């Protein structure tokens, strides 16, 4: 096993959605910079959009929506806890990004007049732009990477960021090759973190470790790396929980089917929520119905016309999760004949869908100088794919400017030795615990103790369990470099589990519907908790939380709007037997 040193100007970690955009934009700011895109898998087929995407969930297109309206919608959907400046920066650049992607060859749905065919799915505004031919998106990104001469390395797993001893400025990252176990020291003047969601946190009900909603390559490595580098994280207690097809981990996809007339229904075939846009409040209503006498919950399409259903099938079985058709075929389920059973996903951390992430400002800067973050792991609530592209762009441009103005910091040899030892240890041990078993145990504990509704004492016990699994990390054993990758992922998942428990315990109220439903603090308490909960490694090296006040809103929200997402339930379906809270 070798140690390989490499120096670049800008290092982008994660080549899924935000990462390639960051790399391209950094090169466009200064083509002379050496920009390296480092990817755990292969940039041609990596990340959430590996097979393509069904549509843009949050397109802000002139004539259909305004940036101000979008900021209000997200402020309300996220129960007031947003740094509006970051959401506004997204919204103002949303349309320019769509036009750029369109020029690059990404196909969006248009009407007869050539205008974008935007659909209403959210509670208030109109933002969903279908991409029925969205399967080429990775190819298009790859072409741009080549055209802009971005350097690419595949199958390297980043494990820690390198931070200067004196000024806390970023200096690069450590990584290893998941096929050879070679250890990499990559020096850089600035770094963009774009490693996606923490998708292997909760355990899917099947018990299948890789049957997650998120692409399971995204194990939360970036959350862990940012934490250890001293960055602030925010909103970790605002979990991601999604409505899925029962047993199949693809989204039930009311976004795709809604505009065609499909909807989420209870076992009587009745609608029980006014709007299928994913929010904590929507998930709370979903959960109520699921656990009530009207449960479980279904995706209802069987009332639609044949040609409508076949259009839906073409999209749902062709783009982002194409194995869905096989799943239904295996069970003999046809959208025409009956409703499709739905369930809720395991928990995860993801700002793309919810709000958990590394704290960033409107230029994608984290609190660590020279470190930028974008995509699902950067805290810009409900940012989705287009948000990943827009913030990827910001991060790339900011990182390029930082690299233009700063030199390279030397890497401390002691830091290097310590990390190389940590990474190689599971391969060098003669025997030990298999990573898959430790991961299974850890994630089962996450389900048992952190899955909402959240209970204080349970979360405290969870913390004890996560603490004792820390000892198991010291005896992980890997038979080969591939297992080593799984072993190092378990380290990151454990960090994420601890973060999820600590941030959840800290916020002693309920907020965001099911995402942070605390049984022993059932009320929302704006007087004390209309603040961000930040999490970081404190001066003593411990995981700690603190409050960060909200920045004054730049877009005022009126009282009527503020409660819009609390009125999602259709009143005729109020279920008296619904469970607390």
């Amino acid at each position, binding site marked *: 096993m070798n140690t390989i040193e490499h120096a670049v100007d800008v290092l982008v970690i994660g080549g899924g959605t935000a990462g390639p955009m960051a790399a391209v934009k950094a090169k466009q700011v200064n083509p002379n910079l050496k920009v390296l895109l480092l990817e755990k898998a292969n940039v041609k087929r990596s990340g959430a959009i*590996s097979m393509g995407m069904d549509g843009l969930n949050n397109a802000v297109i002139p004539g259909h929506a305004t940036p101000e309206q979008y900021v209000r919608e997200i402020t309300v959907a996220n129960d007031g806890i947003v740094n509006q400046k970051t959401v506004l920066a997204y919204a103002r650049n949303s349309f320019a990004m769509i036009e750029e992607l369109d020029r690059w060859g990404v196909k969006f749905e248009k009407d007869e007049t050539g205008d974008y065919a935007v659909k209403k799915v959210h509670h208030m505004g109109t933002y969903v732009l279908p991409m029925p031919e969205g399967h080429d998106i990775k190819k298009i990104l790859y072409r741009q990477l080549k055209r802009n001469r971005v350097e690419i390395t*595949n*199958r390297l797993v980043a494990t820690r960021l390198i931070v200067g001893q004196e000024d806390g400025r970023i200096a690069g990252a450590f990584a290893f090759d998941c096929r050879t176990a070679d250890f990499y020291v990559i020096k850089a003047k600035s770094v963009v973190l774009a490693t996606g969601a923490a998708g292997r946190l909760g355990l899917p009900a099947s018990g299948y470790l*890789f*049957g997650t909603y998120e692409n399971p390559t995204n194990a939360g490595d970036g959350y862990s790396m940012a934490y250890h580098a001293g960055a602030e994280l925010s909103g970790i207690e605002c979990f991601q929980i999604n409505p899925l097809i029962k047993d199949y981990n693809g989204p039930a996809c009311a976004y795709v089917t809604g505009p065609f007339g499909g909807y989420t229904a209870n076992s009587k075939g009745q609608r029980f929520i006014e709007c299928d846009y994913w929010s904590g409040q929507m998930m709370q209503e979903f959960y109520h119905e699921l656990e009530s006498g009207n449960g479980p919950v279904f995706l209802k399409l069987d009332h639609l016309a044949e040609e409508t259903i076949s259009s839906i099938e073409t999209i749902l079985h062709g783009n982002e999760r194409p194995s869905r058709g096989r*799943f239904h075929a295996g069970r003999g389920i046809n959208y025409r004949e009956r409703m499709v059973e739905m369930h809720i996903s395991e928990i995860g951390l993801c700002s793309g869908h919810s709000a958990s992430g590394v704290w960033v400002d409107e230029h994608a800067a984290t609190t660590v100088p020279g470190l930028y973050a974008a995509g699902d792991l950067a805290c810009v609530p409900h940012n989705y794919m287009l948000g990943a592209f827009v913030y990827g762009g910001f991060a790339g441009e900011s990182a390029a400017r930082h690299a233009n103005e700063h030199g390279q910091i030397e890497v401390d040899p002691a830091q290097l030795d310590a990390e190389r030892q940590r990474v190689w240890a599971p391969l060098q041990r*003669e025997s030990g615990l298999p990573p898959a078993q430790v991961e299974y145990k850890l994630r089962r504990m996450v389900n048992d103790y952190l899955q909402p509704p959240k209970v204080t004492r349970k979360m405290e016990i969870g913390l004890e369990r996560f603490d004792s699994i820390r000892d198991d990390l010291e005896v992980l054993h890997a038979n080969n470099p*591939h297992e080593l990758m799984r072993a190092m992922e378990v380290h990151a998942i454990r960090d994420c589990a601890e973060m999820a428990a600590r941030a959840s315990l800290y916020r002693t109220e309920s907020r965001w519907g099911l995402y942070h439903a605390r049984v022993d603090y059932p009320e929302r308490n704006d007087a004390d908790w209309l603040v961000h909960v930040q999490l970081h490694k404190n001066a003593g090296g411990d995981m700690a939380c603190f409050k960060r006040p909200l920045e004054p809103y730049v877009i005022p929200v009126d009282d009527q709007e503020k409660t819009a997402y609390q009125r999602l339930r259709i009143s005729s379906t109020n279920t008296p037997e619904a469970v607390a809270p």
Partner: protein
Amino acid sequence: MSKSSFPTAIQRSNVPVTIDENKCIADKGCTVCVEACPLDVLAINPLTGKAQMTFDECWYCLPCEKDCPAGAVSVEIPYLLR
């Protein structure tokens, strides 16, 4: 730490990816599916010279099947989810 402190057993599992060895052209240098897989669970078996699923860690996302130039890959829904 002595070896005996962590005794282990090998367990079989039914994996979701099948490679048609008559169609696979890995022996002519193809590694397309191995490179495409985001979970890195496919490899060329040195004994057969054909691709195979080596680790049971599949997201049933399908790039392996879609990108294979020989139509040799088929992905089923993993047994636990069927």
